[in-house]
């Protein structure tokens, strides 16, 4: 832990990442306490203050119906991070199980599972998600499903490549000679050696999931109004560029900061956990 802090603090970029991630997590967690206008996360109108540029009252200006953009961004972080966490908590274990089985068992199981993974990876992610949302209704839950469907194969491929090389290690042979079960060898022996890479990837992916989810809602396929979402806020504001620039720029910056933060922090984590590549 102390070693981890030392590595992080010795690298200004990782430290920036850590600070950004903590700030964003705090913003999402305490949104109702921080937001100057906590009611503005829903259908509220305040036409007296509609379409105002940034001021001391509204730090990031207001939208077309007078809602405080700063407050809405805080609430939008809740949605984005929540979506990211749910997606990764489903995608990472599913991909891990597939990758472990394919990498350790080999043979026809490897062939079938990894070709399936290749099929998923060959479809452009956004197209796959749009297809899923085209079949289902565009809601937050379905956006989660869509992003999860396109995300697990990356974990399968990551874990597969590690498991394949770990399979050749002496400790796996030792467990096989003793006659340990496949479950023991994959979960207790090989998985612990994949965890650092999985955790690092999950951190890096938080940023990317936020981008994809924002892209989907930008296209109107994710979270529906009046729930605040960074992607749909950018889409809404984009119609009033360049005059009402604050409606687009601040939600856009919020996306940027989140992605930037998780990426820098993920890189620092990679160093701490000693993950290659």
């Amino acid at each position, binding site marked *: 832990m102390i070693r981890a802090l030392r590595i992080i603090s010795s690298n200004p970029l990782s430290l920036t990442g850590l600070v950004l991630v903590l700030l964003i997590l705090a913003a999402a967690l305490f949104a109702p306490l921080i937001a100057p206008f906590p009611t503005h996360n829903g259908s509220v109108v305040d036409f007296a203050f509609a379409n105002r540029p940034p001021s001391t009252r509204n730090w990031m200006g207001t939208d077309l119906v007078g809602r405080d953009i700063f407050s809405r961004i805080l609430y939008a972080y809740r949605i984005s991070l929540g979506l990211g966490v749910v997606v990764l908590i489903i995608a990472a274990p599913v991909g891990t199980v597939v990758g472990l089985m394919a990498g350790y068992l080999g043979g026809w199981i490897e062939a079938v599972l990894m070709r399936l993974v290749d099929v998923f990876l060959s479809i452009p992610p956004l197209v796959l998600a749009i297809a899923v949302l085209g079949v289902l209704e565009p809601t937050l839950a379905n956006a989660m499903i869509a992003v999860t469907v396109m995300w697990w194969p990356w974990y399968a491929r990551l874990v597969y490549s590690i498991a394949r090389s770990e399979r050749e290690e*002496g*400790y796996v042979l*030792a467990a096989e000679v*003793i*006659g340990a079960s496949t479950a*023991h060898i994959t979960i207790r*022996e090989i998985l612990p050696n994949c965890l650092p890479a999985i955790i690092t990837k999950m951190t890096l992916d938080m940023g990317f999931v936020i981008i994809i989810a924002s892209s989907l809602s930008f296209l109107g396929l994710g979270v529906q109004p009046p729930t605040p979402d960074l992607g749909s806020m950018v889409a809404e504001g984009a119609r009033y560029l360049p005059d009402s620039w604050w409606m687009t720029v601040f939600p856009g910056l919020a996306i940027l900061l989140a992605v930037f933060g998780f990426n820098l922090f993920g890189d620092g984590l990679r160093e701490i956990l000693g993950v290659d590549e």
Partner: protein
Amino acid sequence: MTLLSVSDLSKTFQTASGPVHAVRDVSFAVDRGECLAVVGESGSGKTTLANMILGILRPSAGTIAFDGAALPARRGPIQRRAIQFVQQNPLSSLNPKRSIGASIRLGLDTYGIGARAARWARVEDTLEEVGLPREMRRRSPAALSGGQRQRVGIARALACEPELVVLDEPTSALDVLVQARVLRLLNDLRARKNLTYVFITHDLAVVRNVADRVAVFRSGELVEIGDTPKIFSAPEHPYTRSLIGAVPVVDDAELQLRNRLAEGT
């Protein structure tokens, strides 16, 4: 009394450039309590032989009998437990993410040796037997030296209470002083527990120190087998002669110097 007997054992690998005969019609027997050294250059089929004895590879032909009964293609826990394995590379043979104790305990859990609650104590007893402190069970392999790791590898085999231990170049990755200590440990353990060793090595100096008998392999065939003193003093096969001829000789003066130094320590 014969513990392990190998008859007409062959292993052929199918490769793109045709079949490769890794082991060809090999027959020999090992008595209980004996140490048989298997020597030969790399590619001579030593490791393939070891893997067949351990049940990692299936023989293409021939049988392996243990304690009077032929071993089946799929071995049960009783048969697995009796034949244990010490690997060459102590760096890769222990899982870097698991404690020393967890690695040693695996056999106990797999074979159901001892009461569950007593297994950690057993693991610690085994550590003591190989000359390591009991507290070491909580340590990670990264904290250990090469020699200590190899002792843990031996402890892992020993914890299963085997009858036969297959040692695949157990000292070749260690430096000389550590090598000598590990060999002494292996000799002690064999005497104390009446273990039987199949000791694979290419180091003839090691052979002289540990083996009762020597089996010489060349391109998958057993060219000569006999008592260690006889193999070293009167090798029959020309290949054995050339192997022994290649050992660097220590002359009398050097030997005396070594003895003097040894007394000084």
